[in-house]
């Protein structure tokens, strides 16, 4: 099935075809499987021996101090960078070997094209990935997601005419519009003020639940990670390694208990780790000078 039906403009009903869709073995594989990933940037070892899996429907946050390689890891998962060693499999296939529609990226500084209108920015991924759809169909999907993030009235504006919060809504709509299995989000709310970030977190939470997407969410903000995630990967730095894999989903089922007791405990634990990481990174910087 290649068409995408939007019934009454309310919901994108059909899922995009993925190259692996016809292969049952691939469908049963984890959405993303990273094993023994190592990445050198010139003579700097950025990531060492990173392994984890992400099943369908999971909201995974990656937290670590600045420079621990979180964004590099995300770019490798996106296929922009190639790992020096190790493998990244998307539904059982090496990333970068096939052009598929399994992932879409949301960027910290929005990365909207200044010369394209809001609607054309949202249409961007569809224009590149879904040549099988007619222009009208792509417009229809883009409009649907623009409406979904509350910017239907702004479709003919240019990005510079929007506030930061609105620009990131466009970024979200652009990523959701290609209907990927997984969203890769690189500190998407890091450039926003606290209120806009909170609003967008709520919208993201609703969209992810409604569309059943998986998310890998890189952030510095541990409250954000605790609020949104079903699981947190804690990364140590220089080189970046997985320090701890914290599953939260089970505890979150009992919402009241979670909010009042567990969240505080996890916050203290993660913050204790981050404090040490940030302090040691500053120590390294001072020594290097």
């Amino acid at each position, binding site marked *: 099935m290649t068409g995408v039906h939007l019934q009454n403009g309310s919901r994108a009903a059909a899922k995009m075809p993925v190259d692996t869709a016809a292969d049952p073995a691939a469908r049963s594989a984890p959405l993303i499987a990273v094993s023994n990933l190592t990445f050198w940037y010139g003579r700097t070892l950025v990531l060492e021996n990173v392994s984890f899996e992400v099943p369908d429907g999971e909201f995974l946050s990656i937290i670590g101090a600045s420079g621990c390689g979180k964004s590099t890891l995300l770019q490798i998962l996106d296929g922009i960078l190639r790992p020096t060693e190790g493998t990244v499999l998307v539904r059982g296939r090496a990333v970068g070997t096939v052009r598929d529609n399994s992932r879409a990226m949301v960027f910290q500084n929005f990365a909207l094209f200044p010369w394209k209108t809001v609607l054309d920015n949202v249409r961007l991924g569809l224009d590149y990935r879904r040549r099988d759809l007619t222009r009208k169909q792509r417009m229809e999907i883009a409009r649907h997601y623009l409406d979904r993030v509350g910017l239907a*009235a702004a479709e003919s504006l240019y990005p510079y*005419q929007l506030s930061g919060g609105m620009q990131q809504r466009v970024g979200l709509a652009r990523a959701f519009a290609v209907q990927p299995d997984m969203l890769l989000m690189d500190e998407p709310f890091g450039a926003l003020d606290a209120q806009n970030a909170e609003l967008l977190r709520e919208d993201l939470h609703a969209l992810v639940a409604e569309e059943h997407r998986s998310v890998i969410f890189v952030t510095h903000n541990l409250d954000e990670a605790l609020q949104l995630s079903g699981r947190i990967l804690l990364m140590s730095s220089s080189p970046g390694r997985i320090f701890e894999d914290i599953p939260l989903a089970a505890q979150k089922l009992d919402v009241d208990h979670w909010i009042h007791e567990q969240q505080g405990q996890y916050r203290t634990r993660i913050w204790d780790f981050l404090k040490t990481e940030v302090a040691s990174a500053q120590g390294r910087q001072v020594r290097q000078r």
Partner: protein
Amino acid sequence: MKSKVSANQEMPLEAVMTPRHEPPCESWVSRKRAQILPLGTAVVILVLWEVLGRTMNWNPLFFSYPSKIWGGFIDLADGPLLSDLRVSGTEFALGMALSILIAVPIGLAMGSLRNLYYAMDPLVTALYSTPVLVLAPMLVIWFGLGISSKVAIVVILSTFPMMINLTEGVRNTDRALLRAARSFGATRWRIYRDVLFPAVVPFFVTGLRLAIGRAMIGVVVGEYIASTSGIGYQINSDAEVFATSRYLAGVAVILVFSVATMEILKVLERRLAPWGHASRAQE
């Protein structure tokens, strides 16, 4: 819906520096002051010039004033002006067209290919910053007194500012946009079409503006050095015989042409890059 949604609007520096408490004035004069004020300056200068010319009784061989220059213009227009403009215009247009044809591919390639940039940049920068007009006499010897030598002068003057600006445009393209395009699966051609070409438009227009200024210098100086026609030749001939009013009328023609070209470029820039003005205003 064309209204701006946020407060990210262009704000005049004056308004930022001096907070105003009265409501903004919306009169016609206030709205059109960007057009009215420069006209006002021109009128004041012309009137002062005219009054000085009429009252001071300076030697007409060395000095002229607006009404006399207008007379000189009528004289020129009845005489060789049109054919001179045709010659100079042809030299200018051919020279600019050749410059664009040379500068665009090389500039884009230098911006995209690092090795080519390293190899070519010192040469291009040297040729841009050296007053290559000193080569004009040699070009006249090579290409003769006709339009070819002036076209060559325009090319060596105008190519490099465009080339340098295009190179910088490509090199300054926002890496995040390139990454976004690749992330969403853009082909190499789509990256050029959707990211690099639009990103260099404002740089290209800036290069074009510099190139046009230099091209006009090239045409006029080329005709000064050795020519048998053209507006530069005419100006030089009138200056040599102390026909000061006609000479200044020729200068005024060039001035009007320059201003008109720059205004056309501004319109072109707004059409080609409607996002550019506002985003630069934000920076």
